């Protein structure tokens, strides 16, 4: 941790600023949408990062249910938290983009809707963790995570069927992408992934320390003179 962490930190900072430069300056301006389109380089990488983190959450929860090891519980918690943050970025950048381009903040398009539902599911996961009074919150949370993951395909299908009956909103039609744009997009994605990893790592450490503190308190009450602890 001690050595690798600052290195990753610096690397991420460099990558992020390079990606910013690429996105704002190097990438070509889109013809119809103009400069607003550059939000694309934040919008899409955030979405991908969020999806990856949610997958991590699912896997970690499964592992926890079988192994009951605290480490995978912490991984699940952390990936859900950071995933929700990135998903929020998608949900914020999307409408910011939509307003000038489509003229409305929100529409019940398939992709928007499914992202929203995904976000709701993982928020409810975090809410459960916060509100649980059980001594075994991790188990409950892991179960919910599995339900959430199972739900994702249904969300996609249902919204797909739902919306095929109505014309797709404005975006449609965008077949191929300018290779330079793709290049910038990938760089941004790499930067975002590093950034996410960085946050997850430090959050993981924090959670681990917090649990150690709890443990130490309990140990203290174990060794304390028994009378006074009542």
């Amino acid at each position, binding site marked *: 941790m001690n050595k690798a962490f600052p290195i990753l930190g610096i690397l991420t900072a460099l990558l992020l600023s390079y990606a910013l430069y690429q996105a704002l300056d190097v990438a070509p301006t889109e013809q119809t949408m103009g400069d607003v389109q550059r939000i694309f380089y934040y919008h899409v990488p955030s979405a991908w990062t969020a999806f990856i983190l949610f997958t991590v959450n699912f896997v970690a929860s499964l592992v926890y249910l079988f192994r009951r090891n605290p480490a995978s519980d912490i991984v699940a918690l952390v990936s859900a938290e950071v995933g929700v943050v990135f998903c929020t970025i998608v949900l914020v950048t999307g409408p910011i983009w939509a307003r000038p381009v489509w003229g409305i903040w929100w529409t019940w398009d398939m992709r928007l809707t499914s992202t929203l539902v995904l976000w709701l599911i993982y928020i409810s996961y975090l809410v459960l963790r916060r509100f649980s009074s059980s001594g*075994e919150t991790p188990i409950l949370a892991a179960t919910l995570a599995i339900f959430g993951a199972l739900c994702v395909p249904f969300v996609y299908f249902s919204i797909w069927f739902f919306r095929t009956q109505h014309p797709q909103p404005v975006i449609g039609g965008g077949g191929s992408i300018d290779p330079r744009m793709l290049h910038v997009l990938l760089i941004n994605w790499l930067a975002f992934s590093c950034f996410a990893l960085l946050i997850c790592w430090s959050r993981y450490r924090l959670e681990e320390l917090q649990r150690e503190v*709890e443990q130490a*308190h309990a140990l203290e*009450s*174990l060794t304390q003179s*028994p009378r006074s602890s*009542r």
Partner: protein
Amino acid sequence: MTETAPVITVSNLIKQFGRFAALRGVTAEFSAGKLYAILGDNGAGKTTLLRTLAGLNRPTSGQITILGAQKFGDICHQVGYMAHSSLLYDEMSGRENLDYFARLYGISESARCTQAIRAVGLDPDLRRPVGQYSQGMRQRMSLARALFNDPKILLLDEPFSNVDIHSATGMVHLLANIRDQGKTIFVVTHQASLLDGTADEFIWMEAGQIVARTLDLQQTARTT
């Protein structure tokens, strides 16, 4: 008397609730066919110990072996548990309650339930719902619920509280009988004198630990 193999072995049992340790390293062996009285001040951890034995609390660390099994699920039909709360549905009569719980244990003869209700001194035909019982009647019905499946191990959390003195003495006789059939009984109580002469061993708890085990009540080898 020959020394029997222990039915319950507990080693270094620790149970934490968040930052608070309610059991702080309990190690003990209990043998079959004995009646153990568990005594101790309020908050000593008696209920927590019983709940942990009954598989309702998962120990933070430490080992429990009951009837040779490590997993409570394997032997749960041989354990009877009675708690502070009645564990009964207030809206049903005592009889209906027992009939339902009997099904959970795969028992279908209702004679067993009738017998258990009689044993604790209640009327099996009482139609009133349990919610309208007096406190002591509820307590007795709750004991009947723990007894009816004829368990090898009985875990009783303050069975005598709120029970009148006659019935309590009756209960003690009942428990002594059951013990004499080779069952192991744990009774948490604050009315130790009721068990004087009946209990085989008194177990004194304090602040999450067993501080003494004595063979009779007078010999209070308490360390405080």
